[in-house]
């Protein structure tokens, strides 16, 4: 143990410099977007009364989904006792926390009055799904942080005692003064980790992500959203994107940080990802058939816009990157064990699900509420995209710094 050096950062400093340089450029671009957003409000967006939600809301539900999905992967590790998953448990939790922060940044930027962001905590409205969601998000972030703490505490103590420099200092702070590493104390950690996990699973499934789906589905006014299975699809595609990201990070860590990579675990994650993609496709097909069978004009029109409209790129992004490419890769046993192929599959899913989220938000809003009213037109402006790039880069930066400084990979492989 003591002979280990706790160097869990980049192995090659050129890669480190290169990666941070890319992030720095993206962050500078994003800062410009933030400047525009803060000085001109929503004027530089293409949002209208017909299409009041756009790029930022799509990214908001995307990151909530990424968070819920990543969390469920970690929950499988500690609640269902899938020991092989322990290697990625903390990474998944950390990603879940960051995704949630990024999601909240997106939704906050979308508000007309950012200065009143905290109004939902002051004025509750029990009939509003959004009111409930805000509280669910807050509790959820608390649960995630608590879990990460209990999962990582023992290693934080080790790093603070035997490591050096900023890592040791930070680790010492994050132990919150609980430095007991006796078997009893570690068992307490595990117990609380499990308890929080049990609380977190229904919270993530039904409140955080199911609830975000519900936020859309309750709208009788938009028939494309207004189905019972809609929130369920939300949850499934969340797991798909979360799994995709965890797979990609698992491979990336072994490549750049030199972490041990288990091909069995990789193949197992691959199978899980493939299964969830198939469920995702299946549920979406069922929902679509129910909708189209009724020939309701609004539904038919929405589907027409999804597949052939100006925003059809989102649908094809989903089909190609979230479904076809990963399924092709995951269908072969040899590729499921190949880190190179699996990172492609994971990243492809992460990229493709952006399309999934756009398909949800934008085309359904383009359909006029009533015959004779103007149809919506929407494509995000450069400003909307630039700010999005900034927030995503910020999330990546927080992850990278955290991954370099924190023992997100268990110091002892316990499997």
């Amino acid at each position, binding site marked *: 143990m003591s002979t280990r050096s706790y160097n869990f950062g980049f192995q090659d400093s050129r890669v480190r410099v290169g990666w941070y340089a890319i992030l720095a450029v993206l962050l500078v671009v994003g800062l410009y977007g933030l400047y525009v957003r803060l000085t001109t*409000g929503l004027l530089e967006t293409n949002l209208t009364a017909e299409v009041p939600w756009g790029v930022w809301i799509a990214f908001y539900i995307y990151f909530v989904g990424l968070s819920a999905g990543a969390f469920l992967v970690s929950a499988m590790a500690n609640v269902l006792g899938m020991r092989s998953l322990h290697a990625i448990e903390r990474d998944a939790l950390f990603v879940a926390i960051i995704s949630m922060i990024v999601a909240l940044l997106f939704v906050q930027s979308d508000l007309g009055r950012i200065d009143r962001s905290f109004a939902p905590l002051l004025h509750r409205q029990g009939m509003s799904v959004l009111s409930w969601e805000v509280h669910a998000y807050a509790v959820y972030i608390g649960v995630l942080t608590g879990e990460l703490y209990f999962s990582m505490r023992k290693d934080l103590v080790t790093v603070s005692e035997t490591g050096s420099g900023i890592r040791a200092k930070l680790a010492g702070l994050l132990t919150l003064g609980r430095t007991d590493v006796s078997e009893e104390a570690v068992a307490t950690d595990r117990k609380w980790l499990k308890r929080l996990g049990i609380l977190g699973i229904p919270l993530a499934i039904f409140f955080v992500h199911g609830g975000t789906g519900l936020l859309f589905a309750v709208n009788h006014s938009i028939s494309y959203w207004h189905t019972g299975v809609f929130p369920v699809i939300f949850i499934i595609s969340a797991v798909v994107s979360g799994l995709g990201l965890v797979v990609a990070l698992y491979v990336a860590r072994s490549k750049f940080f030199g972490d041990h990579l288990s091909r069995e675990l990789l193949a197992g994650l691959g199978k899980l990802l493939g299964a969830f993609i198939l469920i995702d496709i299946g549920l979406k097909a069922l929902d679509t058939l129910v909708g189209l069978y009724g020939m309701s004009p609004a539904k038919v029109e929405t589907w027409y816009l999804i597949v052939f409209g100006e925003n059809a790129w989102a649908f094809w992004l989903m089909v190609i990157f979230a479904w076809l490419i990963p399924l092709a890769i995951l269908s072969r046993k040899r590729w499921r064990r190949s880190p190179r192929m699996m990172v492609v599959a994971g990243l492809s899913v992460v990229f493709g699900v952006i399309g999934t989220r756009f398909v949800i938000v934008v085309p359904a809003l383009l359909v006029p509420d009533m015959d004779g009213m103007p149809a919506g037109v929407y494509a995000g402006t450069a400003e909307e995209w630039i700010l999005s790039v900034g927030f995503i880069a910020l999330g990546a930066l927080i992850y990278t710094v955290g991954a370099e400084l924190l023992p997100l990979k268990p110091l002892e492989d316990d499997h």
Partner: protein
Amino acid sequence: MGAGDSLENYETLLEDHLEESLEELEKTEYSTDLGIMMAADARRVSSGEMSSDEYWGKYDDVAVSEFGEDYEQTPNPAVDRVQQTIREETAETLSCDACSLPDVAEDVDEEPSEDDHIPQWGMVIDLEKCVGCESCTTACKAENRTPPGVSYNVVMEQEHGVFPNVTRTHMPRPCLQCQNPPCVQVCPITATYKMENGITTIDYDRCFGCRYCLVACPYGARYFDFGEDYQDEFDEEGKVEVPEYGNERTFEDTTGQAMKCNYCHHRLERGEEPACVETCIGDARYMGDLADPESEVSEMASDQRAFRLKEEQGTDPNMYYLK
């Protein structure tokens, strides 16, 4: 400046408005000199030469002897919940009722009497009379000075039939003031709410601009102030007051917030009809109390020709159309 100066000044001032003004003032049972002195000092208070505390210290005793019980039971205008101009200790020493006007108003309003009838404002539009001139839309824009892209009232044009047998209908659509408004249901912070009189309105001091209500409204009757305005088209930039917002609000105050038709609530309060109803050239719009079965709108709403929009949504709109 002595009282004599003030008297002369005021005499001139009064003469401008009313001949023989002093004689007129003498007709009341109260002292004219005292009234003029108080008025002169009140001007000093507003110009800052005299403090509110000094003023009320000077006149409290005189006022008791002059006005008696009337003075003792009247709230003092210097006492206020928000902008009190007098120190609490001074207020305590006054003989008059040392509570603010809103406090008194609250006590008065507390129990409405049994026969206070609360109207349920509703509208009926006779589509046979509507010619599609859009003067309702224009009147609404002019009255509420809504920003670009916001028009509380629109007229939907629908064409029916195949050439040469075609007809066109025009369907004006303000807010339908639903009994079960989805916009109110979804608002996370109760920034939009339904008033007792059936009208759904928005609290511009609370709305944080999430636009969930715009999404939820099945009739597209909700709008958003994205920050555009017509200010540079006016001479006095930033000075235009919009009646809808109350006297102290300007365009900027609604930026980043949801907006909607509230049946010209400021006009209703004055006993006037909404601008769209008043202006309709064909008299196609009727506004009235749906809670009163005898009202014109109630009778029309139960007519065979009456129908409502998207009833399957369960919104129960207070808005009827006549085919």
